[in-house]
C-alpha cells in the first residue's frame, strides 16, 4: 500500500517552508523517524522525519521548492507494521491544501493515492489594475464597510467568491496577511537609485531575515516601547560565577552571566505578574502566564533566533547554563526545533560580548518586556571604605506601555538590579 507523506503541521502560524535539501531518493528504504527532507521555516531549520517505514516510490519536491503544510513530500510503499502509526499521524496533519497560491512544485503529482487530496483549484482571476480602477469594487456594501472598519483597503483584497467576489472572510484573510507582512508596497517610500552614487550589489533576503524584518517591524510599529536604563553591580555575581564555573563545565556547560541573569529574570517575573503577560488587544484582556519560560537572543550567521529555556523557576543556574550552552550550539548549526523556539515569556539579550553599553531592545512580541545586558566594566564606586573597584553591568529594559506603566517597569528593573547586587540566595544547585 502506498502512502503520501505530507508536510506536517509545524506550529502556530507556519503555513509553508522552503526545501533546503531532500535527504532520500526514489528506491531508498526509510525507517520511521528517519529524516527525509530538510526545510527552512520562518523560524528555524528543521529535518522532517518519516513517520513510516517503507520504500520511497516517488519524491514530489526538490531543493528550492516552497511547500505548504499538508502538501505531499513523497510517496512511500509502506511496509506492514508502519501502517498503524500512519493512520493516527494522518489524522493529526491537515488535509492537503490546494496547490494554487504561489506554490512552486517540481511537477504536479501524477497520481494521487490514498488518502485522496482535493484537486488543485485555480486561483481566482485577478482583474488587471487599470480596469479595476474604473469599476466599483466587487464586494457588497456591508463587506466594504467591514473592510473600512478594520482598516483594510478593499481594493487590495483578492476575492474568493464566484467570479472573484470579495467576502467578509476574504477581507479577514487579507488583514491577517497584512498583519504579518509589515508595510505594504504603497506605504514604503520609493528608494533612490543608489547606483547613481556608487557601485552596489543586491542580495535576496533569506526567509529568516524576512521573518525577523516583519516581526520586529510589526513590534516596533505597534508596541509603544519605553526603555529604562540602569546599572547593576555584578561584582559578587562574577565571583560566584568563577567559583561555580567548573561545576557547569563538568556537566557539559559554560557558566555565563547570561545564565545567571535568566534565573534572576524568572524571579522578577514571579514578583511582577504583569510583566509575565501578553496583551490580547482584540479581546481587551491581559493574559497572565503561570509558567516562567525565558527566551535568550542568540546571534547566528543566519540571523537572530530566540531559543527558550522552559520553567526557569524550577531549574538551578548550573542546569540553565548547560541548557543554554546546548541551545546556543544548536542555534549556530541551525538545528533548533520549533518547540525550542516557542513559548517564551520575556527575552534576555546580551550584547556585552560585543562591548555594547546601554541600548534600546525591541520587544519580542507577544512578550511585554525584554531585558538588554551590556558589557560589565570595572568602575570606581564609593563604598563604606571609600572608592572601590566594582564590576558594573548596564541593563536596558524595554516594556510595552499598554500593559506596564513606567513606575512598574522601573520597579521590575530595580528588583533585577537588587537581586544581581545581592546574589547570595541564588541557587546554583539543588
Amino acid at each position, binding site marked *: 500500500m502506498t502512502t503520501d507523506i505530507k508536510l506536517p503541521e509545524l506550529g502556530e502560524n507556519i503555513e509553508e517552508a522552503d526545501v533546503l535539501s531532500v535527504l532520500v531518493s526514489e528506491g531508498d528504504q526509510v525507517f520511521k523517524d528517519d529524516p527525509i527532507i530538510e526545510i527552512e521555516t520562518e523560524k528555524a531549520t528543521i529535518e522532517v522525519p518519516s513517520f513510516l517505514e517503507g520504500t520511497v516510490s516517488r519524491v514530489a519536491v526538490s531543493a528550492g521548492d516552497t511547500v505548504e503544510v499538508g502538501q505531499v513530500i513523497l510517496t512511500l510503499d509502506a511496509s506492514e507494521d508502519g501502517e498503524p502509526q500512519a493512520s493516527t499521524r494522518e489524522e493529526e496533519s491537515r488535509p492537503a491544501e490546494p496547490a494554487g497560491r504561489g506554490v512552486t512544485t517540481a511537477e504536479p503529482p501524477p497520481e494521487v493515492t490514498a488518502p485522496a487530496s482535493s484537486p488543485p483549484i485555480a486561483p481566482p*482571476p485577478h*482583474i488587471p489594475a487599470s*480596469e479595476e480602477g*474604473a*469599476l*466599483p*469594487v*466587487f*464586494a*457588497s*456594501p456591508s463587506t*466594504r*464597510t467591514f473592510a*473600512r*472598519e478594520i*482598516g483594510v483597503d478593499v481594493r487590495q483584497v483578492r476575492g474568493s*467568491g*464566484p*467570479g*472573484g*467576489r*470579495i467576502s467578509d472572510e476574504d477581507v479577514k484573510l487579507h488583514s491577517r496577511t497584512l498583519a504579518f507582512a509589515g508595510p505594504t508596497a504603497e506605504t514604503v517610500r520609493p528608494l533612490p537609485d543608489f547606483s547613481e552614487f556608487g557601485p552596489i550589489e543586491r542580495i535576496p533576503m533569506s526567509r529568516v531575515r524576512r521573518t525577523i524584518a516583519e516581526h520586529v517591524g510589526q513590534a516596533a510599529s505597534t508596541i509603544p516601547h519605553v526603555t529604562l536604563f540602569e546599572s547593576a553591580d555584578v561584582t559578587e555575581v562574577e565571583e560566584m560565577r568563577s567559583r561555580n564555573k567548573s561545576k557547569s563545565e563538568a556537566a557539559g556547560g559554560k557558566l555565563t552571566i547570561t545564565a545567571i541573569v535568566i534565573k534572576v529574570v524568572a524571579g522578577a517575573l514571579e514578583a511582577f505578574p504583569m510583566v509575565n503577560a501578553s496583551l490580547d488587544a482584540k479581546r481587551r484582556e491581559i493574559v497572565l502566564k503561570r509558567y516562567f519560560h525565558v527566551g535568550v537572543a542568540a546571534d547566528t550567521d543566519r540571523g537572530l533566533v530566540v531559543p527558550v529555556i522552559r520553567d526557569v523557576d524550577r531549574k538551578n543556574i548550573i542546569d540553565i547554563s548547560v541548557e543554554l550552552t546546548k541551545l546556543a550550539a544548536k542555534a549556530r548549526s541551525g538545528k533548533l526545533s520549533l518547540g525550542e523556539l516557542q513559548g517564551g515569556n520575556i527575552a534576555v539579550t546580551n550584547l556585552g560580548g560585543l562591548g555594547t553599553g546601554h541600548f534600546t531592545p525591541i520587544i519580542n512580541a507577544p512578550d511585554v518586556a525584554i531585558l538588554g545586558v551590556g558589557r560589565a566594566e570595572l568602575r570606581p564606586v564609593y563604598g563604606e571604605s571609600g572608592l572601590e573597584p566594582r564590576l558594573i553591568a548596564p541593563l536596558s529594559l524595554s516594556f510595552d506601555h499598554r500593559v506596564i506603566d513606567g513606575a512598574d517597569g522601573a520597579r521590575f528593573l530595580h528588583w533585577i538590579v537588587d537581586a544581581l547586587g545581592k546574589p547570595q540566595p541564588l541557587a546554583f544547585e539543588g
Partner: protein
Amino acid sequence: MSQAGEKLRIAVIGAGPGGYPAAFHAADLGMDVTLIDPEPNPGGVCLYRGCIPSKALLHAAGVIRESERAAELGIRFPPPEVDLEGLRGWKDKTVRQLTGGLGMLRDRRKVDYVQGWARFLDAHALEVTGPGGDEVRVEFDYAIVATGSRPATVPALDLDSPRVMDSTEALALNDVPTSLLVVGGGYIGLELGTVYAALGTSVTVVEMTSGLLPGVDRDLVDVLQRRLEGDLDRILLDTKVVDIAESGAGLRVELSPQSDESGGEYEKVLVSVGRRPNSENLGLESTDAEVSDQGFILTDSQRRTGEPSIFAIGDVAGEPMLAHKATGEARVAVDAIAGHPSAFDPSAVPAVVFTDPEIAWCGLTETEADKANVRVEVATYPWVASGRAATLSRRDGLTKLIVQPRTERILGMGIVGPGAGELIAEGVLAVEMGARVKDLELTIHPHPTLSESLMESAGVFFGVSPHYIARRRG
C-alpha cells in the same frame, strides 16, 4: 470645542434631502443639532420646488394620458376638464403634508431650528440672518453644508419677464399657456414639458446637443423620444437659443440654426439648462473649505471639506445632483463626525427620468463603459416579449444589463418603460451586492409583472430567455 462628556454641537445649513436627514441622524446619535433653512419647515428644493411637486404634477399628467389611451382598450372618456386651481391645490397640499410631517419629526427629535440664511464667520461659528433681518450667532464643533443648488441661466436667456420661467415658476402652475418653449432637453425640461403638454400646451423642446437627455444610453432615450414625438409639438436638436425678446402677447425666440419650423413666437419659455451649486455668499472664504471651478465645494470621501470641522453634502458637493445621493452622503458625513470610518463609495447611484415612459438606470451605463474603455457585454430584453407589458398595452419598453464578461458580474442596468423608476431598485441591489447574471436569472420573479423583464434580460445574456429568442452578443 466642546468639553469631554458634553454633546457635540452640529450645525446643518440647508434642510433639503441632504440637510434634514443629516440633522435627524445626528440627533439620533445624541448630538446637539441646529438646522438652518429659510423655509419654515424642512424639505429644501426637493420637497418645495423639485422632486415632490414635479412628481405630483407628472402623476396628474399620467392620469390624463391614461384616460386618452383608454380608447385603445375600448373605453372612451370625454376630454378631461382640468380645474387648474384644484390641481394646484392638490399639489401644494401634498408638499404641505410632507414638509409639515418633517417639521413634526424635527420637533420630536428636539432639533433646534433656526429660520434664515447662514454665513460662516470662521471654522466654528455662523451668523444666521432671519426673515426679519435679525441676526443670530451659531457656534458649532462641526458644520454640514447642504445648501443645494438653484436653476442655472445663460446670458442669451437672461430676460427679466414673467413669461420666462425657471423650474420653480413652472411648478407654481400659474396658468396653462397655449405654447411653451422648453430650453434644454435634460430631465427637468422633459418632465415639466410633459406636464404642460398633457395639460394642453403645445410644447417645443430645444436642445443644444445632438440628443435628448445627454449622457443617457441612446437605446433607452430612443424609446422615450418616439413617444415624445407624439406628445410634444416639436423636438429641435443641435439647436441653440440665440435671443429672446418680448413681443406683444408673447416672446419672440431666435434659434440657431434658424429653420422654417424653428424659432417663432411662444407664450412662455421654460429655461431648464442645468443647476448651479449654492456655494456663494456662504462666507466659505473665512474658512479653509475650497470650491471647484463649477462651484462645487470640494470634499473627501467622507464629505469633509478642506476645513476639518466643515462637511458638505448634496447638490453643493457635486454630481449627480439627486436627492437620494444627498441623503446617502448625509449619513456618511454624520457617521464620520461620530468617529466611524464611513465613506461614500456606492457602486450604483440610480437615476430616474419620470417622463412617460420612464427611464431609469444605475451603475455603469453603456455610454460610460465606451468612454472609459471598459469591456462590457450588454444583454437587452425588449418588452414586446413581456406578457405584463401587453396587458398594460405598453410594449415599448426595454430592460438591459451591462455585464463584465469575465466575471459575469452585473455592473449596470438600464430600463425604459412605465414603472422603470420602481424596477431599477432591484438593479441597484444587484450591482451593490455584486450579483452575477446567473444570480438574477435564477431568482424567481412574480408573474405577470414588468420585474420579470430583469430576469429575462439575464436569460438573454445566456441566450436562453424563454420569451425572447436572442443570440448572445459579443
